[in-house]
């Protein structure tokens, strides 16, 4: 049984998704989805334990050995992210029962859970697989289902946003497909570790270089790196709250994983250094992205759009860690991946809880909510503090590691800029606080009360996780360091 964990992880949600269509009763489907996601979470926890004690797991699909069959390979890096994705998904689903019934028409609930589970399948599949083409397939499974869960709501702007995401996402995925095709052309293999062995022989070839170029641009579209982020703010802002919480916490993170995996495990860092000034490109785009997106965030009136821009900025920090190209830098990147997922899931769930009560995500409608929904608002403030990077929150831990990594590399001006950019985060978080606590109520009536427990519990689970991992960093830092070591170990 445990031997089949790597594939069960992906198969369980994949089979559960069509089963949802048979269950039909919306509440039942919701509970079923929670159990499925929880099963994936438990499996990924088991995998992480297994990987930490026994090392990398290699699983051959259907018993076919690696270059012919598809191999799933679980190491520290992806088991850590599997845990994150399935964990966040489970917590978000806990809040979905009430939130979805408020935001979606009754007849769409079943379809929502079906598409949600397919999206989860895709994300877990990308993480687990060691086959280059399999990555593309799972990427499309997760993308197509995320276009669906974005557009499924009643806000018409979500339709346009989802369409825009579909166009840009498909271009990105097709670029990835071209990259994989060109790699196959040169090496005749699709297995990532086989590729890593055969690519050095053809490093000088222009085909490999263009494969790399297509691949990087495609993945950067998916992860919303600064000039390619245009699909993200609208898609996050107008999607149903549960969708936003789930996608903001997981989908861009998984794309970053793909980027890391290909740079380090497939192409190898020497090839990257030799062929493209990727570090410099990432450094500049990351920094510009952080500033432009943070400043944009301070101008937003829609609170979901505000935090969506902040997500683009956080991607900038994550990419900055990659640009450093040292073990410390990768550790910071991985930490921020994990920590940012926790923050954004908590924030967007809290925003969803407010939507549940007042039916709006406009900041001006938040005026006076501080007294009416104290616990939810406290969660938003805690999430905001974590975004800024206040000590005792996860945001502090990852910014600390990022700054240490930058100083270690000798890039102190960049470290100064990172700290300055945190001040912009103070501005947009303060704007929220000002509307919530210091503005007289506008549309808030007497009837508005605290969010229901079914939403408060998941929100506060995430907020407490934010604080817990901000104080006790053994798991996150330990695993990130191990993963960074193994990434460099493969290639040095």
């Amino acid at each position, binding site marked *: 049984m445990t031997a089949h964990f790597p594939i069960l992880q992906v198969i369980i949600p994949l089979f559960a998704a069509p089963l949802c269509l048979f269950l039909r009763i919306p509440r039942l489907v919701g509970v079923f989805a929670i159990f499925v996601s929880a099963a994936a979470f438990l499996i990924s926890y088991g995998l992480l334990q297994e990987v930490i004690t026994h090392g990398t797991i290699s699983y051959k699909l259907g018993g076919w050995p690696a270059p012919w069959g598809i191999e799933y390979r679980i190491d520290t890096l992806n088991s850590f992210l599997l845990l994150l994705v399935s964990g966040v998904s489970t917590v978000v689903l806990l809040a979905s029962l009430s939130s979805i019934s408020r935001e979606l028409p009754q007849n769409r609930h079943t379809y929502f859970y079906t598409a949600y589970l397919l999206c989860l399948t895709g994300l877990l599949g990308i993480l687990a697989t060691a086959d280059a083409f399999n990555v593309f397939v799972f990427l499309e499974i997760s993308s197509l289902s995320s276009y669906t869960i974005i557009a499924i709501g009643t806000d018409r702007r979500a*339709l346009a946003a*989802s369409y825009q995401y579909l166009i840009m996402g498909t271009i990105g995925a097709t670029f990835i*497909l071209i990259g994989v095709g060109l790699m196959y052309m040169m090496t005749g293999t699709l297995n990532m570790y086989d590729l890593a062995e055969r690519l050095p022989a053809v490093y000088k070839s222009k085909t490999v270089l263009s494969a790399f170029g297509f691949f990087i641009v495609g993945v950067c579209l998916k992860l919303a790196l600064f000039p390619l982020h245009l699909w993200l703010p609208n898609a996050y802002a107008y999607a149903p709250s549960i969708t936003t919480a789930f996608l903001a916490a997981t989908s861009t993170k998984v794309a970053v994983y793909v980027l890391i995996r290909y740079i380090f495990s497939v192409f190898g860092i020497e090839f990257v250094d030799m062929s493209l000034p990727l570090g410099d490109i990432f450094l500049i785009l990351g920094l510009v992205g952080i500033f432009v997106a943070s400043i944009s965030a301070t101008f937003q*009136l829609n609170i979901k759009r505000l935090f969506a821009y902040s997500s683009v900025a956080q991607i900038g920090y994550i990419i900055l860690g990659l640009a450093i190209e040292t073990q410390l830098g990768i550790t910071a990147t991985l930490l921020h991946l994990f920590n940012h997922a926790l923050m954004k899931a908590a924030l967007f769930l809290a925003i969803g809880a407010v939507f549940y009560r007042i039916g709006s995500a406009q900041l001006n409608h938040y005026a006076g909510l501080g007294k009416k929904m104290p616990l939810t608002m406290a969660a938003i403030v805690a999430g905001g503090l974590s975004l800024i990077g206040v000590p005792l929150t996860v945001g502090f831990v990852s910014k600390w590691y990022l700054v240490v990594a930058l100083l270690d590399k000798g890039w102190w001006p960049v470290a100064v800029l990172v700290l300055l950019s945190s001040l912009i985060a103070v501005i947009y978080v303060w704007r929220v606080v000002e509307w919530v606590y210091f503005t007289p109520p506008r549309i808030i009536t007497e009837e508005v009360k605290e969010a229901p427990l079914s939403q408060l519990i998941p929100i506060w689970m995430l907020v407490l996780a934010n604080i817990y991992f901000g104080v006790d960093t053994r798991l996150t830092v330990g695993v990130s360091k191990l993963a960074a070591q193994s990434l460099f170990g493969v290639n040095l």
Partner: protein
Amino acid sequence: MNIIGLYNYWIVVVLMLIGFYIVIAHENLIKKLVGLTIFQTSVFFLYISMGKVAGATAPILDENYQIYSNPLPHVLILTAIVVGIATTALGLALVVRIYEAYGSIEENDIQVQDTHDRLECQLEAYGRQKPPTLFDQETN
């Protein structure tokens, strides 16, 4: 030298650029999807022509033939074709719903309506018409 010999790649590149140009240049949401499909189809050609081995036959075992084409790229691209169909279907479904919601499938009309909505929200929040800022335009 073999510029003519590599004609399959020329077709791929030309189709790819035509498709990409349509996606970028056209305002009409259906035409954009047409462009996207052409763009994806060019990649199917890339894969299919990759599997061709000079002088080889279809990969069906027969004692009269020794060399076979590589069937793997063809199998891969079958998957990608299915993905492409799903994408087009989903895109068209979205366009139908966009038409129902906005009464138009021209990108410009939709943006005008969205901007109008946003300005109204700002009017409600701040009590005065705020001119669109640099950052509002950037997202359009």
